[in-house]
């Protein structure tokens, strides 16, 4: 839907219900900051939105080079949306390399803003252009807006005691000011943030604000811009909202869990992309009684957490795939010692070091099976950035009630992606319960709860419960070391049973769309948004497609088998080579169709739509266009 209104001062304002914009520049150009600031303004304005930051692993790849390009995509809408958009309608390219690596995604006729001041022979050569694309006619399919941001920005900063380098560094604020004008957005949210961020550096503050206002004024006065776009606020559920990304929501969820249980939180972690921000965030909240430890390695981090769990604290360790591999022996100790532990795995592209800043969902089978012995743990996965908050609480609720390790599988897309988040009513969240051993109630440290099979949490300091625990097999009855064949058999089954019994706390999986029919899309983790959008699109086109999303992966929801049986076909889109498919096929003997993308990037809606058409027999085999 597009409407036009013309006003004397502002030129044409076109109303759109959804816009996708991408900021791209050198990794030193501050594109993540620019994108984040535009996002915050847009969120406060009331649009629904979703973001996709995409940056290189190198902190500063060679300036102007293709591998050094950093991008931030944002989709905002007056409707409820689930993904950061497939292809941008607008692209801001701060240098030739950014143009080259991103132009292919821009929709034909899309708005293209370039800083022509950076299109010099050196930068063109670094980007592999023989002729300047500004001059060779190759950009004619787009609405090109070329301006010398570098020079205009330097002019705006004249009189400030800044070197050329510092001046150059604020040109992202110039671009931001222009884009805010283009989309009819106020500057105040960015101004407030900038004032707070640079309050101790008045010169930089002044430079950034001048740059922001100069870019904004350029839009208003320049003949270059003939039209602006307005995306009205979205109609969403009433409430108070904030903007949040997955890692923030995860960290806040863990703080909340600690308060809900009334127990101190202990977080041990070794820095690893993309999980480190959780450590940074939790380290800032020591006033909640949180203790954070930057461990010497991943193994130490999980082991320190186990030590804290043994001490009776809420124990948490966070990592990404390679770190989860290193933590497997520790995780197994928690299984064997029957201690509550939460492991956060913010998945990234593997194997090995893989692509640290790129997203993937390929740790599912590692988390499920990657330990010696029969060693079940509980697995959960948030669906959206905001959902990370509730799932962090869920992780501890299960771990403490059942005295089991819980692995929470987040991913890089959720961790860094953001969305408007309706702030939950904390008072309405039930407290988290735990059971310290009690004289008169528990006879000893291995007195099992008949319902959950959990033993009491017999923490040091409790007189009368002095006991020895460890990684050796223990007697089911007493907890003493035991090598009897029958006992090991019983204990192995007990460990499986304890995890299986968590099912009573797992909500049934919900189906959206027709409750039976041709096709069910089944997803988990961060693919939620793309699947939901593809299902909406399919339904709008009259195709009988339903979708269901798993937030509990071990145990699965009790009704899952029954749900799967109601559809002729089950399609499982995943960012891995078919890991949930393996689990579903093995467990339910359903001939699920895997749809796997292993590109370090989230699904586009169009990719899932294409596969739906193939499965429904409406088109030939679907192939990715990378």
């Amino acid at each position, binding site marked *: 839907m597009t409407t036009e209104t013309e006003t004397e001062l502002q030129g044409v304002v076109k109303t759109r219900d959804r816009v996708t914009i991408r900021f791209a520049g050198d990794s030193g150009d501050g594109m993540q900051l620019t994108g984040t600031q535009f996002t915050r303004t847009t*969120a*406060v*304005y*009331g649009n629904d939105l979703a973001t996709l930051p995409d940056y290189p692993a190198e902190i500063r790849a060679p300036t102007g080079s293709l591998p050094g390009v950093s991008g931030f995509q944002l989709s905002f809408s007056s409707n409820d949306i689930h993904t950061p958009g497939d292809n941008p309608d607008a692209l801001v390219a701060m240098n030739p390399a950014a143009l080259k690596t991103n132009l292919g995604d821009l929709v034909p006729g899309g708005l293209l803003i370039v800083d022509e001041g950076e299109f010099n022979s050196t930068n063109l050569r670094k980007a592999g252009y023989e002729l300047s694309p500004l001059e060779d006619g190759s950009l004619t399919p787009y609405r090109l807006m070329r301006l010398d941001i570098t020079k205009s920005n330097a002019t705006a900063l004249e009189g400030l005691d800044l070197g050329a380098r510092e001046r150059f560094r604020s040109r992202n604020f110039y671009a931001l000011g222009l884009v805010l004008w283009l989309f009819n957005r106020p500057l105040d*949210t960015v101004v407030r943030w900038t004032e707070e961020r640079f309050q101790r550096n008045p010169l930089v503050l002044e430079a950034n604000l001048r740059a922001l206002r100069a870019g904004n004024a350029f839009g208003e006065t320049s003949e270059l811009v003939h039209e602006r776009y307005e995306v009205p606020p979205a109609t*969403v*559920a*009433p*409430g*108070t*909202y*904030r*903007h949040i990304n997955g890692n923030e929501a995860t960290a*806040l969820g863990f*703080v*909340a869990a600690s*308060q809900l249980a009334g127990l*101190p939180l*202990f977080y041990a972690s070794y820095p690893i992309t993309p999980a480190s921000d959780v450590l940074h965030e939790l380290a800032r*909240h*020591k*006033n*909640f*009684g*949180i*203790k954070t*430890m930057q*461990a*010497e390695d991943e*193994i*130490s981090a999980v*082991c*320190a*957490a*186990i*030590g*804290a769990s*043994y*001490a*009776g*604290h809420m*124990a948490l360790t966070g990592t990404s795939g390679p770190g989860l591999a290193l933590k497997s*022996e*520790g995780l197994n100790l928690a299984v064997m*010692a029957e201690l509550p532990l939460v492991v956060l795995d913010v998945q990234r592209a593997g194997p090995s070091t893989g692509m640290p800043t790129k997203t993937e969902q390929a740790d599912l089978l590692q988390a499920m099976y990657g330990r010696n012995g029969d060693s079940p743990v509980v697995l959960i996965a948030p669906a959206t950035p905001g959902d990370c908050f509730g799932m962090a609480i869920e992780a501890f609720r299960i771990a403490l009630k059942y005295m089991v390790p819980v692995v929470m599988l987040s991913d890089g897309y959720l961790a860094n992606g953001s969305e408007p988040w309706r*702030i*939950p009513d*904390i008072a309405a969240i039930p407290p988290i319960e735990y059971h310290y051993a009690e004289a008169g109630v528990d006879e000893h440290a291995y007195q099992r709860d008949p319902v959950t099979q959990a033993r009491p949490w017999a923490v*040091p*300091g409790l*007189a009368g419960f*002095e*006991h*020895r*625990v*460890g*990684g*050796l097999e223990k007697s089911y009855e007493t907890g*003493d*070391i035991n090598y009897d064949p029958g006992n090991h058999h019983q204990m192995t089954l007990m460990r499986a049973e304890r995890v299986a019994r968590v099912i009573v706390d797992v909500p049934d999986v919900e189906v959206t769309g027709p409750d039976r029919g041709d096709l069910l899309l089944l997803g988990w983790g961060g693919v939620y948004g793309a699947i939901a959008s593809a299902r909406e699109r399919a339904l709008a086109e009259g195709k009988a497609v339903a979708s269901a999303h798993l937030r509990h992966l071990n145990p699965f929801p009790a009704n899952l088998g029954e749900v799967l049986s109601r559809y002729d076909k089950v399609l499982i889109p995943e960012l891995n080579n078919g890991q949930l498919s393996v689990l579903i096929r093995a467990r339910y003997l359903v001939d699920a169709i895997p749809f796997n993308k292993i590109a370090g990037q989230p699904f586009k809606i169009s990719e899932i739509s294409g596969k739906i058409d193939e499965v429904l027999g409406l088109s030939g085999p679907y192939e990715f266009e990378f």
Partner: protein
Amino acid sequence: MTAASSNGTFEEEIPLLTRKDFVSDQDVRWCPGCGDYSILAQMQKALPALLIPREEIVFISGIGCSSRFPYYVDTYGFHTIHGRAPAIATGLKTARPELTVFVITGDGDGLSIGGNHLMHILRRNVDVTVVLFNNRIYGLTKGQYSPTSPIGKVTKSAPMGTTENPIDPINLALAAGATFVARSLDRDTKHLEATLLTAARHKGAAFVEVFQNCNIYNDGAFAAFAEKDVRQDRMVYLEHGKPLRFGKHNEHGIRLNGFLPEVVENASGGDNLLVHDTGLDSIALPTILSGMDYPEFPVPLGIFRQVERETYDGLVAAQVARARDAAEPDLEALIVGTETWDVR
């Protein structure tokens, strides 16, 4: 009879414990004649003197013969995984600084697979007592060389002799910044009991290496200098503030010649013997002493270093207290953040 509880007040009096109170109901399963028995006995003798209730004491161990230790002490105990006891103890002590925590490890567990964690628990100065049973061999896996086995040692995994240089645990502990570093001997029961007690009372990371005989796979590893009949001539007891003297009649001594120690036979008062000082900031002196080895020198026993520093667990707790003083925890405010908008 009663004694003060660990926090020094007499309000809550606890019964005075004896060695027997620290003997668990588990059968001890070390080989008959193993040096571990002596270490266990001396620990059980030393523990009552700490005047700490059993439930507030925790033994954390890794994997190996020595790491079975926690099963035999009637306190809280956690027999963990290979090499990781220091990491688990760090988490435990940081979460609950009021607990008294021991780490029991061996030369394979602590210096090979767990070398990294040992270094870091000492560097951080976590308030725990680390007891490293050094028998210079892998016992539980039946006789492979360890990181403290001397070069050339013939073992099952080195039939032609090892080609590796050994590491010196004392030297490592000093370099890592341990605030208490000592060595004792399984057969010198009085010295061992006293050393364990002093180490346990130390505030900060205390490291005790115990020469421990494995009579099955490495019998007599220390016999050349530690047998009772030669010990006085071939080992030197370090005592703070006293000159280094050894020999049956304390007739020999050690002095420094430049950076190097030298033996002075039949030393007199005028020989400028090295006077031991455990309280120096610098690790230069204890490092020189740690380098003395038989047969060139008498092997030192006793406390190499004993200094006071802030502990990791104490500093972490202080930060939490300071943060709380600065800002009351307000969960709702935290979750709401700084920027919100309302949808009606």
